[in-house]
């Protein structure tokens, strides 16, 4: 817990060389992971975009139709 709260500078100054090396590798790994996720995210968007588009437009119009009928039903009751 203490190490997690410390700044990277204090970490390197106060830790064993093995721990330093592991930490660097960990940070590097995290960066790689984030980069990978970002790239994956961009790709995901490219692949998911057509599906979202294909689904959203017709479903939104069907929901609008449902809502219109509900509104007409309510006004008919009044």
């Amino acid at each position, binding site marked *: 817990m203490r190490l997690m709260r410390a700044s990277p500078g204090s970490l390197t100054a106060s830790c064993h060389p093995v721990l330093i090396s592991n930490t660097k590798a960990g940070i590097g790994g995290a960066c790689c992971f984030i980069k990978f996720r970002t790239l*994956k995210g961009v790709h*995901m968007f*490219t*692949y998911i975009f*057509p599906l979202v588009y294909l689904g959203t*437009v*017709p479903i939104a*119009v069907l929901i609008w139709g449902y809502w219109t009928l509900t509104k007409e039903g309510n006004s008919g009751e009044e």
Partner: protein
Amino acid sequence: MSTFTVVVLVAFLLFTVIGVVMSRSVKDTADYFVAGRNAGVLLIVGTLVASYLSTVAMMGEAGFAYDGFAWVTLLIGAISQTGYMVGVLLFGRYLSEADTLTIPEYFGRRFNSRRLRGLAGISVLIGIGLYLVAVTRGISLVVTELTGISGVWAVAITWAAFTLFTVLSGSKGVIVTDTIMFLIFTIGGTAAFLSVIYSQGGFREVFSTLAANPEWRDGFLWHGAVGPDAVLASPLDSLVYIVTFGVVWMFVIAVSPWQASRYLMAKSPAVALRAGAVALVVVLAFYTILLFTAYSINITNPAITPSENVFIWAAENIMPLGLGLVLVVGLMAAGLSSASTFLSLVGFSAIHDVVPWVRKGASPADSPEGGVQQARIAMLIVGLAALVITVVASPKVLDIGYMAAAFFAASWGCVAFASTQSARITERGAFYGMLCGGVAVLILRSLDLFVGVSLPVMLDPVIVGLIVSLGAIIVGSMTSQPTEPEIRYLTALKKKVERSTGKRELVVSQRYLMVSAVLTFLLILGIGVLYVPAMMRTA
């Protein structure tokens, strides 16, 4: 004579026999023009989808998908097919209670105007008449491709296949044959498409192969195989194209005579509404399987030319013989069903809207029984004229025919919606709205076709035509007042629609919409489960 030739000729004969049988139940003009106004959901869905899907979908759009634009075509459909819902809510369900035989008659009565009815009638006569010519030529080319019968004979056989039963049975035969054809090409066609997918290893394998191959991967992305030499140059071009054409075709589906007139035959506004919701899902699902199957055929043969023959090639080379025959019959059925609807619309408008307008008298169809015979004669004359034009027409005439969809979207779009939704639109607004929207499209499309001057995709002639039409409606309605009969007609129509939709009817209709939304979601989920992992694995 090959098996394909025999099957095509037998199918033609079968449709004619069905039409002849149906003609026996035609008793009066309501039967002949609007199938007795008694059609249920299945028949309305059948005729809606069959009239919409023609060889354009099964060949033209399939070819575009094969060329690497499956997603683009499908995404255009995501917007355009909402036209079924928008159209039926704002226009179609009112038609089902309008108690008229044709849409031009509805416009005439709604605005208490002979000239508006005449204008709409002439638009149908010329616009759909030329469209009929183009479609007949298209189907005859398929007949030639499949059977080897060419020239005048191919045109004559095609013409006879849809004219005989349409003339004899009118809408009563058309709605039944449309539904049979719809079932053939949706159920049979889907089975045939699935056989193509499974012959290439199944859905997962096909999606993985298309995603992994650098040659096909681009065409499998949402924007298609864009490039400087391709039809669409960049992803932005694809997006603009998708949105613009989606909106244009949404109007076509919502108000074009060959779609909206189907609601005249519905038993009630609730039936019209349910049919609209079902048609939306059916066409979307059918397009999904059709377009991805067309693109997947690249795996087996990436060199089919012209690409619009992709399914004919698949029927002859990939599918089992039985399914190949079903697909070929379905392909022909898709074309014939559109042609029979077009012919009936042109014949009906000629006798019921144009002749009375020209003679300044009553329509012969107003006499319930005698009208049927006269309508048959009128339709036969129109049909013969279409046959002659089809035989002698130059390619330019056919191009003009293909303007029909754009013309009706711009000319009728705003007027149709305003006629049911606004009490402020006047006869003058409606007349000039219809006239100016149509003229704008004809000028812009002709400039493109004959002079080579075209506007950017975003300013498609239909978009410009809709804006012009709306402007004319506003100016026309601001400079005149709605008359008493116009307001009375609209109020009565709205009350009729309201009264015919009871609480229970409403709940059932809502269930149709809900189930349609859930099915659409499941369809998208199904594609997503196959598509996203395949693309991610090979990114």
